[in-house]
């Protein structure tokens, strides 16, 4: 069942055309991550769904209800859309205690006092905040504040919850724990969630669907596996992982395979764009796909090693390749000198 539908949404802020026709669907129990570089319009999209920005064109439906439609001038104000929204800064009201922050949504909905108390207590307990109810926001740690913000947006049981970089104010270690915990919580409550992030690892860890925005349009949308493993454009390929990029010229095309040649090297790869022999092309290969080889194979290169960097869990080796570099991971330190490396053809994407 589709909980949230956005159709051909256009948003203009001042003179800037921020969103230029964005459509997406979020099903019940599904988590969608909005990913993109800064200025791509991901936060604007989230705020527009919430009713905090006004679109110039398009439609938004939440459950059965149309909350915005430019065609018949429907525009339900933010407070009547019944959404949960977690702000990047958490936006806890500093003049209210944790209890008052969380209870506010119920007070506005005229829920009886006793029931309010029960429901607030329950959500606080579920989020591990049971004994912090009487504190003020400034007396809480970053992680606690984040959970209060979440409790506040969940207590009135919205169908859809919107999260604007919910983890960006936590420190690195806490963030990795929180994204698993947050995903589990949303699944347990059978909510639909839209989460803005600029961190591709966070997006993949949390979401069922990743939507990558660029300059106000959706560049690609799909499961994390599709986004990482089968990017449709150079932009997506570069955004989604740690990559080597090499440029050269296509010399041979055979179905979806092709050969790319540069200064003193030639490699087979998979075509991911309509290229023909003689075109200039960019080859992209993930760092983890570069393998050290013992014996030369079809797609091997013998390259000088210029540096080995210790990263703790692995070594990163840097090779010189006709003016540029190629980076890959290895298990141990290597001495400078010529090394044979293997570049699997199915992982070398040509754009």
């Amino acid at each position, binding site marked *: 069942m589709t909980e949230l539908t956005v159709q051909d949404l256009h948003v203009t802020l001042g003179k800037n055309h921020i969103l230029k026709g964005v459509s997406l669907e979020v099903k019940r129990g599904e988590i969608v991550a909005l990913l993109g570089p800064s200025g791509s319009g991901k936060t604007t999209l989230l705020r527009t769904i919430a009713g905090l*920005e006004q679109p110039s064109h398009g439609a938004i439906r939440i459950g059965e209800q149309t909350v915005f439609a430019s065609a018949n001038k429907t525009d339900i104000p933010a407070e009547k*859309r019944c959404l949960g929204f977690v702000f990047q*800064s958490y936006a806890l*009201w*500093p003049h209210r205690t944790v209890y008052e922050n969380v209870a*506010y949504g119920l007070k506005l*909905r005229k829920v009886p006092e006793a029931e309010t108390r029960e429901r607030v207590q329950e959500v606080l307990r579920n989020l591990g905040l049971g004994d912090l109810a009487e504190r003020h926001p400034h007396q809480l740690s970053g992680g606690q504040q984040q959970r209060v913000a979440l409790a506040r947006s969940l207590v009135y049981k919205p169908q859809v919850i919107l999260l604007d970089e919910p983890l960006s104010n936590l420190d690195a270690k806490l963030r990795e724990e929180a994204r698993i915990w947050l995903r589990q919580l949303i699944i347990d409550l059978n909510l639909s969630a839209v989460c803005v992030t600029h961190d591709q690892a966070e997006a993949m860890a949390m979401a069922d669907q990743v939507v990558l925005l660029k300059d106000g349009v959706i560049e690609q949308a799909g499961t994390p596996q599709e986004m990482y493993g089968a990017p449709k454009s150079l932009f997506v390929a570069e955004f989604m992982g740690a990559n080597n990029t090499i440029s050269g010229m296509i010399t041979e095309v055979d179905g979806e395979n092709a050969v790319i040649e540069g200064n003193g090297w030639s490699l087979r790869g998979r075509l991911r764009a309509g290229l023909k022999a003689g075109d200039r092309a960019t080859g992209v290969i993930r760092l983890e796909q570069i393998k050290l080889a013992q014996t030369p194979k079809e797609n091997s290169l013998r390259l000088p090693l210029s540096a080995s960097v210790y990263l703790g869990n692995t070594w990163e080796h840097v090779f010189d390749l006709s003016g540029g570099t190629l980076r890959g991971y290895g298990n141990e330190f290597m001495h400078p000198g010529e090394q044979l490396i293997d570049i699997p053809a199915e992982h070398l994407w040509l754009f």
Partner: protein
Amino acid sequence: MMNKTPLSKIVVIILTAIAVFLPIGLLCWQSLLDAPFFQADKKMGLDAYRFIFEDPDFKRAFINSVYISLGMAFISVPLGGLLSFLMVRTDLPGRSWIEPLLLIPVFVSPMILCFGYTVAVGPVGFVSIWAQSILGNVPWNLYSMGSIVLIAGLSHVPHVYIYSSSALRSLSSDVEEAARVAGAGPLKVAATVSLPMVMPALLYSGVLVFFLGFQVFGLALVLGDPEGHLVLATYLYKLTNKLGTPSYHLMAAVAMCIVTITVPMVLSQRFLLRNAHKYITLKGKGARQRTLPLGGWRWVAAGLVAAWLAVTVVIPIVGVGFRAFVTNWGEGVTFIEAFTLDNFKSVFEQSNLMRGVINTVLVGVIGGGLSVICYTFIGLASHRKNNGWTRLLDYTVMTPRAVPGLLAGLAFLWVFLFFPPLVPFRKTLVSLWLAYSVVWLAYGMRLVSTSLLQVGPELEECARVTGATPGQVNRHVTIPLIKYGLLASWLMIFMIFEREYSTGVYLLGPGTEVIGSLMVSLWAAGAIEIISALSVINILLVSVGMGIALRFGVKLHD
């Protein structure tokens, strides 16, 4: 947020615009008539302008006003800039207690200060008598045009100080340190980095002082009287005496001349303000400041500041305080034998004076509170919105700065005389309160909107998403968060309302007396003792406000 402006906010904006533009419109219309606007036989025409332009007194008053404005700008901008540099950037001794003293001329009415000057350094002032006993004659003439310009300039130094010190404060010292490291000496740093960066603020305050110069009234009334030096505002005030009948059309024409000069300057300030902060992009964390050690110059600088304080604050305040406790003063009179409390007794015995004291407190405390409530409504009407309505409000709020209190009071008098729904309030404090609120609209709105801007927008948006209507957001989130800012604004408005004297001049009548306007009318009658006593009471009221502000850490300026 949504772009639609709800009806309630439109109503607030329209009411504000009416309160500001109706009186000014009335002035403008009256100036184009050849008789008071309520007379039946009036005709449209430029007679009023023709009359004043042919009057040599008007010409003299105009030239004097230009002198005062220019002199004020040339005296107060360099001194104010220097003072703020010494206070903010150097290790000048006693900075913390000098700060509130510096601002006294802003919060004490110029009537009182000038009054203090006549008592202290006037021809028979106690300082003058002392000087004469040593030098054989008094080497200054308080009532000359030069003295008037000098005093006007010195007493507006704080206005410049307020703006340039806030610019200097928000300037992080690391930009200076970067210049030092790059190889510039201290003087080079000041000339090429610090000074150019606060230049826009100095220019802004220069324009401010210049148009305040055209609004000077109390100062010229007290010091200009003895030798007949008129300025535009005192010329207007004396027109009635001169012609024997209230000649509204002539007064309106003079008023329009003043407004024509000041309005473009107020508008240009808007443009300058945008520039005034153009170099102050990064605030907060980076703005740590180091003070520049003055070394041997420390005491020279301290002496300079002390001299300015003595001339601008100590002499007039001591003068007026002294005069309030003596029966008479002149050559050969000693303080002990002339000492008396009768001046205060007569204030408490005369019902109109006593009412004036009570009304001053009422207007400051209750009126000030009501004004802050109104300013808050106006502030909320344009909060986080930018459309045609808020731009209208912007200009509406700025406009009263261009209108001297005396003129605003005159215009409100006419409104309360002839605008039927308001006629019953003519003889009540409501008329005075409304005029005060409009005259200080720009100041009050700045106080309130500074608080409003400190509320993070996401705190309000979050309440919306949680289910609160815009009205509930205001009541439950925005107003509770700016509560302390509003209380501080109330205090500041209280002090400003205590100080105000010119707005009430034309509204003065039984029931609407306040200390400020009583002093203006008593000055004409020459009741020196009573004025001194009222001045002391007025200074005490302002001091109470200042004391509370200092006690609770309310910032006296930003």
